[in-house]
């Protein structure tokens, strides 16, 4: 009986020790620093479309290395809000520029980070991008990222906006040129 009690106490203490060890170790914690992004600037212009680009840094603020399994851009421009452009938003890893917009899974050591390059293509519905840009509205979007570290996979979203001031400024510069 005493042996059994001792065994149970040992198991309980071991469970507490393991729990504390896991809690102490922690996990990865990613954040896309949308407030530190670069301005959206035009990188390609045709009569019917324009491509804006910006970089958004990210960091693993956790205590463990983590893997960004997949990252993608989700733009939110319903026709009820603005129907003069179609939007195609994509991103890639700044350290892994590739033309296919594929995000290759990457391990980010804790305390370090990188950057994502966002490309937003606005195509004028009526074929005149200059006119469409002149009335462009704020364009909300999410950076959606799938993360795994020690704990199970989690999908997070960080919100940012491509403000109308930046697109309209670009439009004014284009008109002036």
């Amino acid at each position, binding site marked *: 009986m005493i042996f059994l009690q001792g065994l149970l106490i040992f198991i309980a203490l071991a469970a507490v020790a393991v729990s504390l060890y896991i809690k102490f170790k922690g996990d990865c914690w990613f954040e896309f620093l949308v407030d530190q992004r670069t301005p959206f600037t035009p990188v390609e212009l045709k009569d019917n479309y324009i491509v804006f680009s910006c970089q958004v840094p990210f960091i693993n603020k956790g205590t463990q290395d983590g893997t960004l399994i997949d990252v993608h851009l989700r733009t939110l421009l319903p026709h009820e809000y603005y129907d003069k452009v179609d939007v195609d938003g994509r991103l890639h890893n700044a350290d892994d520029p590739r033309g296919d917009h594929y995000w290759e899974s990457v391990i980010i050591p804790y305390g370090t980070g990188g950057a994502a390059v966002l490309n937003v293509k606005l195509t004028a519905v009526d074929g005149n991008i200059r006119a469409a840009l002149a009335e462009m509205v704020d364009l909300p979007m999410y950076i959606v990222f799938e993360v*795994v570290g020690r704990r*199970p*996979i989690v999908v997070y979203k960080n919100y940012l906006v491509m403000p109308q001031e930046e697109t309209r400024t670009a439009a004014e510069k284009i008109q002036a040129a």
Partner: protein
Amino acid sequence: MDDYELLPVRTRVLTHRDNIVEAIANYAKDKVTDQDVLCIAESVVAITQQRYIRPQELTPGWLARTMCYFVPQQGSLSSCYGMQAAIEKEGALRFVLAMLCGMVAKVFGISGVFYKLAGPTAALIDDVTGTMPPYDKHIVFGPLDADVIAEEITRRLGCYGAVVADVNDLKRSLIVGASPGVDRAKAAYMLIHNPFGNASQKTPIVIIKNYARAAAKQAG
């Protein structure tokens, strides 16, 4: 052993739709002689055998979620998915006992005991990011019947021999399977500098040219 040469062979990405022996014949048959040993990366063999799984298809249990914390971060078992995949292949009891023995051995300064006792899956599994796209988002297991594959390659190509190898840039070189007549230790030594390169170089095949002559010279 300095009479041999290493010849990496570039291929397209080999997938689960490929027959590994025929794919190798397609890319390397005209490059090998009866003096050469053909080496193929183990993860590519495993992929052609459909030995991979998406982590999202796994449900990590409490054992995997706990034990992964006791594996160094660089290891493929450091995520609960890699650990769960390996536990499902090798058995929970085996893993628990291997981990306990590994911990005790570590106290006495002996490392590697866990991987020896936990079974081949633990040593060969590649977690997410371990393989080139499009398999970078998958967990890839080690290949099955690596010796048999090596023998089939040897027969099909008429080369001196073949090996299935697990090699990386950290100077790890392990022969997972070999055809008869190939000295595993010698082949591992020849591949130690990872002539397969990184995944994006797409060279999963390496030919050890003049292996037979170099090995005979060393033996003689």
